[in-house]
Each structure stands twice: as C-alpha cells, then as structure tokens.
C-alpha cells in the first residue's frame, strides 16, 4: 500500500513544513485582526477542524490569547446534492453564538474549486450575521470555479485538474503529517 502510494505521490509538505505554514498563518491572523477576541476559527470537517485547533494553539502561543474554535459542516449546504450516487456523512455544526459582531475564519485543508467555501458561507449565514468572514487554507491548488479567494494560505501549489492533493494529519488519519501531490 505504502509503496504504490510513494510511486504515484510527490511529497509537497512534511510535518515540519506544515507546522511552519500553520504558524505563519497564525501570525498573519494576529496581524490582520486588531480585535482578536472577536475571532472564531470555524473548521470544515474533518481536517479543517483539526487545522483550526492547531491554529488556535499557535495563536495562544504567539498572541497570548485564547480564541474560540468551532465546526461548520457544509454537506447540507452543497450545490451538488442530488447529483452524486453516494452521500458522505453529515456532521453537526457547532459555532459559538451569537455571531453578530464577530470575525469568522473558515478553515479548510485544501482550497480547490471554491464550492466548499461557498457552501460554508451559506451555512454560516444560517447561524447569524458575523461582522466579517475570512478564509484560511493549508493548500491552495487553484482551479477556482467561483469568485472566491483565501485570506490566509499555507502553500500555493499550481496543479493539473487530474492531479489530487492528499492531506494527512496524524490526529485525524493516524498517519504522519504530510501533504502529497498524487498523479494519475
């Protein structure tokens, strides 16, 4: 299993590079949000939730402030329900309420077409009306299909549409932290 993976996969980020990328994003979040107390990190399941948790740890370490984290599930807000032969698990969302006056930062592992981010914007608005919403992604692989861009990016990675980006996080996948570019 591991061999075939290594034959087809190119390592993009290792554990240390992921750590550095998230630490840098944490610095940028601190710089760009004067009122850090109002910030909520909203992770998209599954890996976005773990990345949001790690970002909050870096922000505690660097900014000496405890910021709130939450979960925003997008499955029931996607625009492709009814077009897939199988449906993945829907997870409960969990955001600190009310959102009025707060800055919600959507956190995901990979930014690709932008459709997940759009669904997340829609999902957040069903909980209330935050003062602003921002977007953070560990990897931005391009190929946007909607007018959406990230405010914080760990790694910009130009890809072909046929390639895949695989993010593995120890705490979620039980594999060492890594980002792979998988070629067909």
């Amino acid at each position, binding site marked *: 299993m591991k061999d075939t993976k290594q034959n087809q996969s190119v390592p993009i980020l290792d554990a240390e590079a992921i750590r550095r990328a998230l630490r840098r994003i944490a610095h940028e979040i601190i710089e760009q949000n004067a009122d850090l107390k109002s910030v909520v990190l909203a992770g998209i399941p599954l890996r976005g939730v773990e990345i949001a948790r790690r970002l909050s740890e870096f922000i505690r370490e660097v900014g000496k402030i405890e910021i709130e984290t939450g979960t925003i599930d997008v499955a029931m807000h996607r625009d492709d329900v*009814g077009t897939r032969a199988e449906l993945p698990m*829907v997870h409960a969302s969990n955001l600190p309420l009310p959102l009025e006056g707060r800055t919600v930062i959507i956190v995901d592992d990979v930014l690709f077409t932008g459709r997940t981010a759009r669904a997340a914007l829609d999902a957040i608005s069903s909980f209330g009306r935050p003062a602003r919403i921002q977007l953070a992604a560990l990897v931005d692989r391009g190929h946007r299909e909607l007018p959406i861009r990230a405010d914080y990016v760990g790694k910009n990675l130009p890809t072909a549409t046929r390639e895949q980006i695989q993010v593995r996080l120890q705490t979620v996948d039980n594999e060492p932290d890594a980002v792979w570019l998988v070629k067909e």
Partner: protein
Amino acid sequence: MNWNRKDLLGIRELSADEINFILQTADAFKQVGTREIKKVPALRGKTLINFFVEPSTRTRTSFELAAFRLSADVINISASTSSLTKGETLKDTARNLEALHADILVLRHSSAGAPQFLAQRLKSSVINAGDGAHEHPTQGLLDIYTIREKRGKIDGLNVAIVGDILFSRVARSNIFGLTKLGANVTLVGPSTLVPREFEKLGVTVSHKIDNVLPEADVVNLLRIQHERQRKEYFPGIGEYTTLFGLTNERAKLLKPDCLVMHPGPINRGVEIDSEVADGLQSVILDQVTNGLAVRMAVLYLCGGIST
C-alpha cells in the same frame, strides 16, 4: 461508509452500519432545529409528495416539517382527495405523480408491501411511512435514536415492547433495528397478540409484564389499535389495563433510569397512566422532536442521491 439507497422501505433490509449512519446523520440535522434559520438548502428544488392512503396526522406533519426544513416543496395527498376513490390503481396514481416530476414519495398505506411495489417501478425515492402491519421504519429509527440519545448506546440494553405486537408495524421495525444493534428485546402482551412465533426474530416473548419490568432499561408501550382489533384477539380494555397497562402501581417496579416510551397517540388510562406518561422517566415528547431529525436525515439521504 457512504449512503447509496434511494428508498427506505423497512429496517429489516438495513445493515447495522446503515442504521448507525442514519442515526449519526440525524445528529447533524437535530442541530439545525437550534439555528437562527432552521432551514438548510439540501433539497432545494425537489418535490416531495406525502401520499397518505391511511389517515395519519403526526407522521404526515413530521414528514412535512422535515421536508420544509430541507427546503423541499411539499404536496399532501390523502386517500379521500386522491383518485383512488375513483378506482384508479395505486400504480397509476403513483405514475401520474412521477409524471409531475415528484422526486420523493412518502407513502402510508394499509397494505403491507405497497411501498416496495412502487419503489421497484418508480425512479422517485420511496419512503415507507407505515405499510399495514409490516414496517414503519422512521418510527423504529426515531425510537432507537431516542434510546441512544438518552442511554448513550443500544448494545446490551434490555428493551421491553408491550402491547399489540401482532398488528404493530412499529413493533416490527423496532425489533429489527434493536436486535441488529445488540439490544435484548422482550415482547410482552396477551398470547393472542404476542404469539411465540416472534421468538424466531431473535427476541424473548413474555405474557407476564410484572416479571419483565424490573429488568428493563426501556419500556416501549404500543397503542392498542382499536381499528385493527377483532374481538377474538382482545379480551376487553379493562382487562388489558389490569394485566398489561403501565399503571402508577406497576411503574414502581421500574428501575429509576428506565425510559418510558410510546409512539403516540396515547390512550391515557389504557396502556399507560397519565402520571407515568407525564413523569420524569417519560421520553414521549423527545420521541416527537427526534422524529423530525430522523426524518430529515432519511429524506436527505434517500432524496439526495442521484437516481
């Protein structure tokens, strides 16, 4: 696992994994009810037809509200307003509904197997909302969901189902689901309504409620269905209450954390005394709330896949 069924016809054909998948999906949908906007766009643009050939208010309303919360459009048809009264066959009525591009058909019918008959012939999703004395899968799922929510698990629990088992689709759906998830199910009632035959389904049969109550973690009381009763099965309401009703006196036999359930509508003073129905151990209204979440999950899963 991922979900890939367009229809929900019964719990008998579901795997334990599929049951758990629905319950976990219902967790996510239950939370939608607490949002500022209690509505998600998951089934936007889909049309759901509530086709109730047998009367029902609570199940139909629950499906209707679930569909609204998923942004589907809903039409209600009852037997009296449909052309069934003019002699149209079930199949023709359903094909007409499909010609109108109905995506989801929720069917309540007095004949066992009617939903299956239609599911095999229609592209639309078919959800069984109770067919004869066969199954009522969403009721079974919401009962199991409620037990899991209150007790944290199903495996190893002692669940007593009391009453008119023979004619009860609710009992059948509960039996299939609970045994698949590892509960010990005991059926309780008069031998005419709870024949030993049921032991083939992997459950225990008892005709003495006082022996069962002290060990039970859950007691699910079924409504005595006057409309389905024939005299030879049923001794009389007073005698039934004396022998099998969960009276105040009898409720003292229950463990303090035993859940008291009832699918409704309750016949107060017949299968359950008012004080027990409204007491601390009763989760009857939780069942109603959870029914909405479970039906949202089922509509989302079956109506959300490509057919």
